[in-house]
């Protein structure tokens, strides 16, 4: 991160001292986000699931904020999405349970979600894991935004 009065990431000679960092991060961030979705949807077959995927997805946004600055990150992932995301995840999880309740089953027992009880379980797990993903991602980004917005931009000497 650079001093606030300078143009972001450019020193007094117009050079970028962190050019390697930025180029590599630009290459890595989409891969990290892609890996998060792999972890999310491969959770039924291997290690992983909503919690891990959510944290990895949030990490990709946080890495973007660390490399390109908080203002750029807030353009890429607007803070207003956080309020919707946090609640949407919880509602999606609880709502899946309630839908099954309405369809004649028990709360958070997904067997009634489809005509076949096993397919119902699969749909249910997919839905609740998606809810976990949305809540965890947005809360992690929210905590980072809340803390990160309090301090002035970090100068290189601070480390």
């Amino acid at each position, binding site marked *: 991160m650079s001093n606030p009065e300078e143009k972001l990431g450019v020193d007094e000679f117009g050079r970028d001292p962190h050019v390697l960092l930025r180029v590599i991060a630009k290459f890595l961030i989409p891969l990290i986000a892609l890996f998060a979705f792999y972890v999310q949807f491969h959770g039924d077959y291997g290690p992983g699931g909503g919690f891990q995927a959510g944290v990895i997805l949030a990490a990709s946004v946080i890495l973007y904020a660390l490399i390109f600055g908080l203002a750029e990150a807030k353009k890429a992932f607007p803070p207003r999405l956080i309020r919707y995301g946090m609640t949407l995840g919880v509602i999606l999880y609880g709502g899946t349970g309630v839908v099954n309740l309405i369809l004649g089953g028990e709360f958070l027992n997904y067997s009634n979600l489809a005509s076949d009880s096993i397919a119902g379980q699969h749909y249910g797990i997919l839905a609740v894991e998606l809810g976990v993903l949305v809540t965890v991602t947005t809360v992690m980004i929210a905590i980072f935004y809340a803390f990160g*917005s309090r301090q002035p931009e970090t100068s290189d000497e601070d480390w």
Partner: protein
Amino acid sequence: MNLIAAAAAEPAFAVPVLLLDICLMALLVVVAFAIVRMRSLFAIVMLQGVYSLVCAVWFVTLDAVDVAFTEAAVGAGVSTVLMLSAMLLADRKSTPVPMRRQFGALMVVVLAGAAMLYAVGDMPAFGDVNSPANAYVGMDFIGKTAEEIQIPNVVTAVLASYRGYDTFGEVVVIFSAGLGVLLLLGLNGNAGRWEAKPNGQVINDRTAPSAANVEDIRTPDQKAEGET
């Protein structure tokens, strides 16, 4: 030596794994001591990440890949970054605590450690099928997942379906944690009037980057008060 000989007879718990476990545990102790001795907060936060990463490797040798994954992602990844962003609001170095104020903490640590060592004797052996964690309902889940849910990862089946209530609780806990942070700090770090003095440099709600997005609603009196 007896232990290693006993482990060699057990095919699931081979000597290399045992040696690896001992090395990882030794590394954890070294990192923990380094954290205690360190004064630079930046180095401490980084070492905490290292500690989590070593823990994650250790969980893999215990075949708990899901836990290891979570530890690596949450412990070594996100919490390190969150600690760093919180650390930037504080001084970069911690002041040493005088020796005479450390005896109480030492007593607590020694007592807790002694209690844990006392409890080790009652712990079931690693991978014991008759241990409470593996018997009863746990065995039930493993047996029934294949027919009731039909997904290969039993951990996901237990987490999302059999123990759906617990996971719902966890999601609500994370939601409330996020809500608490937003209520206390504000989404853009702009909740309330605040001031911090990291390294003698004064920062407050007017100089923070979030101030640029918020209209200054203070009266002239308040402004004068804030500048003195």
